[in-house]
C-alpha cells in the first residue's frame, strides 16, 4: 500500500470567507461614528473612558485566557474590544475613571469568563458590567453632565428621559426637542446620545449582515406600538413614540446590544419573540417603572430566556409534519 501523499480531511472542502474576527471587527467599525460623536460632545473625558475601558477589558481577557489555558488568539478576536467599547458608551461621561475600570473588569469576569468565555456567556458582558456599576455606584451612575456643545444650567442637568420621568416634562411641554435627540446635543451616556451616528453604524452592520435585522425591527415596532397607544390616549401626559425611539439607550440597545449573537436566539422565530419581549419591557419600565430608562434591564432579562427560546423555537425539519 502506498503512503498517503495528500491531506485527509472530512468534507466540505470549501469554506466561505466569514470569520469570527471579521464579524467582530465589523461591529467595531460600525461603532466608529458614535464614538466620534462622543469625542465631539464630551472631548477628553470620552477619550479617557474609552481607552481605560478597552484596555481593562483586554487585560482581564488575557489574564483569564492564560489562567484557563485557552488559545491566546481569542484575545484578538475583537470580542473583548467590543465589550470595552460598548461598556464605555453606556457610562455617564462624568464617571470617575476607577469606576470605569471596575466596570470593565466585572464585564469580562462576571459577564463572560465565569460562563466559559466567548460563546458560552448568557448575558451581554458589557451590560453585566453596567448593571453592576448601576447597583454599586447608583449616584455616580446617574449624575449627568451636558455636552460641551450645550453649556446650560449645569446644576440641575438631567437626561431627556430623566426630564420626562422626574420633571413631568411632557405635562409642562418641556420635552427635549427631537432635533437634539437626533443629532445628540443632549446629556446622557457617552455613546448613546447621537441617534444619527448610531444609525449610520447600524446600517453598516445590517448591510454586512453582521446582525439579525429581526431584533432591532422587533424592538422598535413593539415599542412604537406600545408608547404610541399611550401617546394617542394622552398626548399631554405621555411622550411620542418618536421621542422614545430617539431618547436614551434605545438605538444602541436595539442595534448593538440586543443583537449580540452569543446572547440572542439562533432561530428566526426565537429572535422575534426575544425582540418583542425586550421592546415591551422597555416600554413598561419607561412608562411605569421606577427608572427613567429600561433598555439595559430589558435586554438582560430577555437574555435569560435565550436558552429556552433556542430549545423551543427550532425550525421545522424538512418533511416534518409539525414542529413540536
Amino acid at each position, binding site marked *: 500500500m502506498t503512503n498517503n501523499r*495528500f*491531506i485527509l480531511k472530512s468534507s466540505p472542502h*470549501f469554506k*466561505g470567507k466569514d470569520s*469570527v474576527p471579521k464579524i467582530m471587527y465589523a461591529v467595531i467599525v460600525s461603532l466608529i461614528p458614535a464614538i466620534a460623536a462622543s469625542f465631539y460632545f464630551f472631548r477628553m473625558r470620552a477619550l479617557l473612558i474609552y481607552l481605560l475601558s478597552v484596555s481593562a477589558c483586554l487585560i482581564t481577557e488575557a489574564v483569564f485566557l492564560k489562567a484557563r489555558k485557552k488559545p491566546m488568539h481569542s484575545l484578538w478576536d475583537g470580542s473583548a474590544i467590543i465589550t470595552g467599547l460598548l461598556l464605555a458608551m453606556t457610562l455617564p461621561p462624568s464617571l470617575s475613571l476607577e469606576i470605569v475600570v471596575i466596570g470593565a473588569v466585572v464585564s469580562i469576569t462576571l459577564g463572560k469568563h465565569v460562563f466559559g468565555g466567548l460563546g458560552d456567556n448568557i448575558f451581554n458582558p458589557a451590560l453585566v458590567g453596567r448593571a453592576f456599576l448601576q447597583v454599586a455606584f447608583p449616584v455616580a451612575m446617574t449624575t449627568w453632565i451636558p455636552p460641551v456643545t450645550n453649556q446650560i444650567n449645569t446644576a440641575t442637568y438631567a437626561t431627556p428621559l430623566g426630564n420626562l420621568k422626574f420633571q413631568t416634562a411632557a405635562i409642562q411641554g418641556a420635552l427635549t426637542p427631537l432635533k437634539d435627540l437626533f443629532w445628540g446635543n443632549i446629556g446622557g451616556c457617552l455613546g448613546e446620545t447621537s441617534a444619527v451616528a448610531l444609525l449610520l453604524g447600524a446600517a453598516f452592520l445590517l448591510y454586512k449582515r453582521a446582525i439579525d435585522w429581526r431584533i432591532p425591527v422587533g424592538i422598535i415596532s413593539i415599542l412604537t406600538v406600545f408608547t404610541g397607544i399611550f401617546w394617542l390616549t394622552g398626548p399631554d401626559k405621555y411622550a411620542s413614540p418618536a421621542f422614545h425611539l430617539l431618547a436614551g439607550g434605545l438605538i444602541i440597545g436595539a442595534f448593538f446590544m440586543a443583537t449580540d449573537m452569543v446572547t440572542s*436566539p439562533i432561530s428566526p422565530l426565537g*429572535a422575534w419573540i426575544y425582540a418583542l419581549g425586550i421592546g415591551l419591557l422597555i416600554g413598561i419600565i419607561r412608562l411605569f417603572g421606577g427608572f427613567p430608562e429600561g433598555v439595559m434591564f430589558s435586554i438582560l432579562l430577555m437574555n435569560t430566556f435565550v436558552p429556552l427560546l433556542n430549545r423551543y423555537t427550532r425550525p421545522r425539519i424538512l418533511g416534518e409534519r409539525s414542529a413540536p
Partner: protein
Amino acid sequence: MKTKTFHNGIHPQELKEATSNKSLQPLPAPEKVIIPLHQHFGSPAEPLVKKGDEVLMGQKIGESKSFFSACVHASVSGKVIKIENYNHPLGNPVPAVIISNDGEDRIFPDIKEHKDPLSLNPEKIRQIVKDAGIVGLGGAAFPTAVKLSPPKDKPIDTIIINGCECEPVLTADHRLMLEYPDDIIKGAELVRIATGAEKIILGIENNKQDVYKLLQKKNYAFPLEISLLKTKYPQGAEKNLISALLKRAVPRGGLPFDVGVVVQNVGTVKAIWDAVAAGKPLYERALTVSGAGITSPKNLIVRIGSLFQNAIDYCGGLQDGANILVMGGPMMGLAQGTADVPVIKGTSGILAWAEPEQITEYNCISCGRCVSYCPMGLVPTQLMKYSKLGYLSEAESRGIMDCVECGSCQYSCPAGIPLVHWLRVGKHKITDLKRKKSA
C-alpha cells in the same frame, strides 16, 4: 426567467469555467484495470472469474444474489491477473478483480442492440438495468434497479431527472446533457415506462442556459417538462430538488417513493439508455478532472477501474503544491490519501488543489448562520454540541439523522467549526448503537 428553488442553502464559488466548455473525451484505457467488487450501496458482489481467466469488455465479472446490490463488468478485454484487496476511494481496501488490458477491446458477444427499446415492458427494463450493473451516478451509487421497483402501495407519478450538478467545479453532467441530450431524454422515458409514472421533469440550474435552450428547441415527443432552477447549493440534493420542483416534502426518514417520485441523475439515465438500447453494461462513466491543482483540467469518459493517477497524468499531472485530492465535488467529496485508487461507478470527479493553511477554530458564537443555511431545517450547532457531549437521544430527537452532510453549515460557519464531522460522528454512534441493540 422565473426559477424554482428550495429553502435555505448557500452560494459557494462555482469554479466551473475551467471545464464547462471542454467536451467529454475518452481516457485511453490503462494497461491494467482494478475493478472493485463493491462500488455501490448494498451487498458486495462475488467474483464470477478467477485468476488466469480471459475476459471480454462488458463481460460480467461479479454478481451478488442480494436484491440490494449491483453486478460489475470488465471495462477492458484481457486476462485476470489476480483478485485481491486493493485501495478503494471509499476507505477500506476491498477485493478487486485486476485485469491486464490486451488493448483490443474485444466486446462480449452477448452485448447486442435492441431494435425498439421504448416498447419493452417494465419488467424487462428492470432486468436489463440490473444485469448492466447500473447504480446512481450522482455519487451515492444506489442500485438503480431497486429505484425502478417502487413498492406496490406507492404509485409513482413523476420522474425527476437531476441535471443540477450543484457541486462547484464539476461539469461532467453539464457536458453529458449538451452532448447526449437524446440519450438522456430517452433514458428518462425508459425510467418513466419502468415505474409507470405520468411525466418527466428535468431540473437544470440556471447556470446551464445552453442546455436549457438546446432542450427547448428539441421538442421531444415525451411527457417531458424542462424546469430551470436557481443556481444554489445543494439544489441537486434529492429531497430539496423534490421540494423545489413539486413542493412536496419527503417525510423524515422516508424516500422519494413516499411522495410518488423517482429521482435519477442525468448520467444514470444515459447509462440506462445505453444498456437497454445498445446492450452496454456500465463499465465507463463521465467525470470531471479539475481544480487548481490539475495542470490541464478536462471532462473525461473513464473506464471503471482506471486509477486516479491515470486520469491525472492524462490531464498533465499535478501542479506544484497540490496537497489535497478529492473524489467527487468540493462540498461532499471524499479526500483521498493517494492517487493509487481506482475510478468506481460513483466517481463524479477527481479534484486536486493546494489546501490553504488550517483555519483557526473559535467557539460557537451562536450567529445562527448554520441554521439559516441548513437545507434540512436543522440546528447544526446544537446537534454538534450534543454529538460532542454524547447526548445521542437528544441529537436524534432533534433530527441529526436527517442531516444529508451537504456541508452548507460548515461552509458558512465563521467560527470554523467542523460541524459536518461532528454530525457524522453523532450519526455513526447512533447507527452503531441501534445495530448493537438489534443484534
